[in-house]
């Protein structure tokens, strides 16, 4: 059995529902679970706003040291750090699971995942690169950015239950327990940069470069989209299998993604049908309603007052540090 899951807090439930709806339409045989990095009992989401999909709250999967993780991670870090913990839970605790697929909540699956399931018969792990071909300009994001943050996009990963895959998941868990941070100068970018090691430490990894897989703002330079007979196509004759709407906000419909400055809808009118559909789906799935929920696990940011006094106290100490280096 193939199980697909996503991870989010309540504020992203519109995205998760949209992903779930798309899987139900295109891959009804795949069991879909929303891993919820939040507490429904505390948030008191009314019955009619609960998604129709299976929800699995983080505190139910038994993560050792979860309190410590919550203590030093922000919402993005925590949502990415628990990924391997959920994968292991599915492999070990859910009967008959042979394949586990992770999708970021802001993905829509447009086609049957037959090719992926076939790949998983022969490979332990399947990932997709950010870029399958070079990008020549130096706008954002360019090749240098991915060298800091990871050459594979971890909005998607698929694994086949095997000794190697389990080894990988356990190693990833250990890394993400306390090093799922954004700290580029020290080589850290949440869960993603670590996966650069996957083809180095393990052997049975497939890197899929199909332009219809994990299409997103970072690889639009190599992918042109079109619509024909209700289907989305990429580079003329290949189907869009899943599209990743990273950094898109239906409240700002003219912005392709808040993380890039290369494309807009004027330069790339071919994107309109894909994004028009996504916006409608999110609105239909109550995006504005869910957005207001704060995540249970994340502490409020403290406020630091008296900055000038602090700076005055720190000055001599910093001078001492400089002398020592």
């Amino acid at each position, binding site marked *: 059995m193939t199980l697909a899951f996503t991870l989010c807090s309540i504020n992203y439930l519109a995205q998760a529902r949209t992903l779930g709806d798309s899987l139900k339409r295109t891959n009804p045989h795949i069991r879909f679970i929303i891993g919820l990095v939040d507490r429904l009992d505390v948030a008191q989401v009314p019955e009619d706003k609960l998604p129709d999909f299976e929800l699995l709250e983080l505190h139910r999967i038994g993560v050792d040291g979860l309190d410590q993780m919550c203590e030093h991670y922000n919402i993005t870090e925590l949502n990415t750090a628990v990924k391997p913990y959920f994968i292991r839970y599915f492999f070990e605790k859910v009967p008959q699971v042979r394949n586990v697929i992770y999708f970021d909540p802001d993905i829509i699956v447009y086609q049957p995942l037959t090719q992926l399931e076939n790949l998983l018969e022969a490979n332990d792990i399947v990932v997709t690169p950010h870029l*399958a071909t070079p990008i020549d300009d130096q706008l954002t994001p360019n090749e240098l950015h991915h060298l800091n943050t990871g050459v594979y996009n971890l909005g998607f990963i698929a694994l086949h239950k095997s000794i190697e895959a389990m080894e990988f998941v356990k190693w990833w868990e250990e890394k993400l327990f306390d090093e799922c941070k954004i700290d580029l100068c020290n*080589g850290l970018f949440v869960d993603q940069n670590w996966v650069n*090691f996957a083809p*180095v*430490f393990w052997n049975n990894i497939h890197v899929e470069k199909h332009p219809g897989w994990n299409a997103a703002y970072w690889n639009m330079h190599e992918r042109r989209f079109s619509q024909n007979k209700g289907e989305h196509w990429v580079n003329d004759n290949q189907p869009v299998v899943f599209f990743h709407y990273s950094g898109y906000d239906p409240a700002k419909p003219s912005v392709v993604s808040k993380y890039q400055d290369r494309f807009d809808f004027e330069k790339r009118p071919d994107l309109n049908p894909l994004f028009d559909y996504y916006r409608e789906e999110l609105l239909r799935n109550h995006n504005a309603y869910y957005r207001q929920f704060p995540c249970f696990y994340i502490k*409020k940011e403290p*406020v*630091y*007052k008296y900055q000038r006094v*602090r700076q005055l106290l720190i000055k001599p100490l910093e001078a001492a540090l400089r002398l020592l280096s």
Partner: protein
Amino acid sequence: MNQNSSVRLKTIVFTVCTPDQYPFVKVLAESLPAGVSFKIGTVAGTLEKGVSFADLGHSEVASMQQRYDATALVAASKPFFADYFLQKEQADAIVYFDPTIWWLGDWSEIEAQLQNYDVILTPRLTRTFGQSSYGDEKLFLNTGMYDAGFWAMKATDNTRKLLKWWQERLTDRAYFDVCNGMNHDQLWLNYIPIYFDKVKLNKNLGWNVALHNLHERIVTSTPSGWRVNQETPLAFFNFKESISNNIVNQYAGALALQKAYLQRVQSHGGVPAAPFSVRTQLRPTVPGWKQSLRQSIQSMIDSIRYFPLYHKIDQ
């Protein structure tokens, strides 16, 4: 095996160095099997037997010489030299070695791999390890998965595209600046198995042994030659970082090998200054007392800066 696969490839080996590193280069050259054609590229000066970067006639040479220090220039010039030697010698394949490499292996292994692949790279590590004296796993994340001290390429359209792509990047993005995705030429190699076909990641433990992977590769001397982890013949060792880091003292076999190597270097006019070490840059050795004093001052600074006086009140 079909007949084509055993056709002899005309292979060039080259290195790039600054003139002061010539004693290293001589040991490398002597260690290669007779009959292998060996070329030297130089930056920041000239060598009688070498080709100077300035003489390649590339339009970006002047700006690159201005932009980079000698270490970055050595790194950035590699794909330019590769292209130059391939064309000038009409070669079928090219192998790059750092000047500090000592070849001890069986050359036919490289040739056999080049029959089947366009590019050969060596991962800097092959298995998880958590923490070693060199550093921890994340130290490799912003410095590169594959080692730039060795690579081999067959002359094909595929690798011509690769070299052109790499040249364009290294023209202005070959600094050592890990906070911005740059570690000279090395971090760029992360893209090669993704962008280009027929790339072999060679995980043979005897290839490209160096300070950063000694924790997974125990080097020993046996009657039949140097071995890695008892079994694998040692094909080549890169002394680039071990020359200047005393971590190597923890590994008796590697240390003995290094002594033998340095003796040879010495006989060619003395041991040059140690080349750039990424580990020394990122994890400088600091005396214990200094380190702990720095830590306590830093924690005082942190508590003054981050002591919260009150928390935000809910809307």
